[in-house]
């Protein structure tokens, strides 16, 4: 097991720059998730760590060894692919044992290791089958098994769950996390699904357009998003944004939305009077208020999800979402008051998008 250091890494395809100087330090035994919308360069970065893409500039090291020019086969990494990439002409047994056979391990050692991995992954009854005869989840497990037997320094996962149905995805997510807690192998996991990122990661790296937007623990990213992009990307349903200008009156500072709706902000906020800002409030922080607190909203749509009810309402001409656990019977068209405690409000500069 080892740490992975990515410093100043760039990737060019011809004249097109895909990655703009990426710096990430991944500690030994850490589970890091690279997350971002498609085309943000996260898979390219993973493939560069794997040795499947060349590194245009910068350095990648595993442990203390710089691996820029080390071929994939000598990097001592294991990778799980999105489409599993199981060898279709080999049995499950041979698929898992392929790397060991290449390393000329003894027959006995190979079969011991395969059986051990199969045990962990519940694949023992399927060892003689070919990949064609397996379900999606089982194939996924075989791909995991192929990585497991390697005792590699780093595990790389390239959207390994995206071909599974929603239910199985949740199950496998937990299994991968449990597996990591057990083996503690340094892992880099690429996904576009922020829930996967939140649930699995020790640390999340949010990427966008070839740049790192923010790095941090899941709750850090959730509670203190560094900018509008991260605030929007992390969390489901995502954060509500209302544009406005910072103002103040007797009751304290507030953000004045376009239709003069008053959105209260904390007295400690460093936003300057008159500054154009984006007011952000997570749906679960918007509570139904009574009296003078909060601001007016008109209910447009109501979606019950079971544990709570999503209320989509119009505030200052924008649709926002509030989560309510109360089973009161609201109706579309109804006027309500919503309130977000000032300490839960996120403020972003309107022009740069940076957190204030």
């Amino acid at each position: 097991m080892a740490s992975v250091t990515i410093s100043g890494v760039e990737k060019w395809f011809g004249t097109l720059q895909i990655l703009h100087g990426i710096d990430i330090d991944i500690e030994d035994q850490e589970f890091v998730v690279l997350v971002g919308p498609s085309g943000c360069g996260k898979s390219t970065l993973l493939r560069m760590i794997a040795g499947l893409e060349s590194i245009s500039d910068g350095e990648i090291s595993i442990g203390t060894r710089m691996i820029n020019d080390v071929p994939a086969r000598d990097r001592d990494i294991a990778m799980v692919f999105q489409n599993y990439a199981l060898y279709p002409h080999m049995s499950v047994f041979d698929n898992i044992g392929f790397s060991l056979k290449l390393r000329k391990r003894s027959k006995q050692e190979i079969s011991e290791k395969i059986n051990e991995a199969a045990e962990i992954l519940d694949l023992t009854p399927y060892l003689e089958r070919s990949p064609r005869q397996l379900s999606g989840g089982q194939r996924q497990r075989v791909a995991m098994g192929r990585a497991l037997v390697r005792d590699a320094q780093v595990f790389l996962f390239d959207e390994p769950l995206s071909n599974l149905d929603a239910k199985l995805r949740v199950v496998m997510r937990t299994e991968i996390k449990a597996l990591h807690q057990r083996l503690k192998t340094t892992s880099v996991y690429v996904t576009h699904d922020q829930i996967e990122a939140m649930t699995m990661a020790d640390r999340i790296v949010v990427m966008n357009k070839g740049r790192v937007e923010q790095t941090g623990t899941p709750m850090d990213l959730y509670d203190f998003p560094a900018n509008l992009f991260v605030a929007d990307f992390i969390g489901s349903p995502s954060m509500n944004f209302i544009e406005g200008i910072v103002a103040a009156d007797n009751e304290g500072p507030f953000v004045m939305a376009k239709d003069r709706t008053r959105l209260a902000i904390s007295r400690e906020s460093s936003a300057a009077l008159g500054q154009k800002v984006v007011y952000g409030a997570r749906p679960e922080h918007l509570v139904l208020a009574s009296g003078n607190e909060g601001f007016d909203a008109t209910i447009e749509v109501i979606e019950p999800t079971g544990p709570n009810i999503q209320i989509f309402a119009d505030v200052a001409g924008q649709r926002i979402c509030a989560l309510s656990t109360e089973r009161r019977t609201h109706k579309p068209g109804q006027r309500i008051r919503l309130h977000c405690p000032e300490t839960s409000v996120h403020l972003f500069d309107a022009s740069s998008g940076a957190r204030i």
Partner: protein
Amino acid sequence: MTPKLKKSLLYWLLLSPLCVVILLPFGIMFVTALRPRDELFVYPPTWTFSEFRWENFAEMWVKTNFGGALLNSLYVSLTSTIIAIVLSIPAAYALSRYRFSGKGLYRNFLLMTQMMSPIVLVLGLFRLMVHLNLVNSLNSLVVTYVAFNMAFTIWMLQSYFNTIPRELEEASWIDGATSFTSLVKIFLPLAVPAMVVTAIFTFINSWNEFVLALTLIRSQNDYTLPVQIFSQVAGRYQVEWHHVMAATVLATVPVAIVFSWLQRYLIRGMALGAVK
């Protein structure tokens, strides 16, 4: 009558003119090959005859030196097929997997060569073979068949190679395989169906080729089957049609059987590529 049956009947009805066109020559070939000699030119022609003369085949075999020509054909077709496939695999692999300048041009060039009829090139090829001192050698045919077929084989193999997911090779590299090991252990086993299908086509092309064989081979001992059969017809006072047809049966039927038997690889090949 069920709708499904009606539909089938309709399809067969529509297909029947085509069937007649394709099957009639075969029918005539068979009945002529099995007829006694004096029933060849009865008028009006009949499909029936008095006895099955299997001896036609034995007589023909000796009289027309069929065995020698068969060996020549087998040698030329098999050798050229093997060489064409072996040389095409790296070319097709490179076209499918690597980015290099002039790739599009090269592909178009391959396609263009397919648009030229060999007849146009016969004179030039003959002079080339004279120069190489290969006239009247079966190897001249091997070389030209390989050249003519390679554009096709590269094209075929490449489009199949494209369907083999790149991740399979990448996974094997990460598993510790060298490019060569990955090629031999992962890639080529998956490409077998494509290679078999391509080989069949190449073999049949070489087997049936006539113009070049007629031009480049001078001595009767080196004739391939099409030329040998042709020589039983052309420039003779008397044509032994029953022998000609017996020879034609022997030249076509085994190949047709092998071809239809190997066709299953085509279907299996399609299925294999789809494994995800």
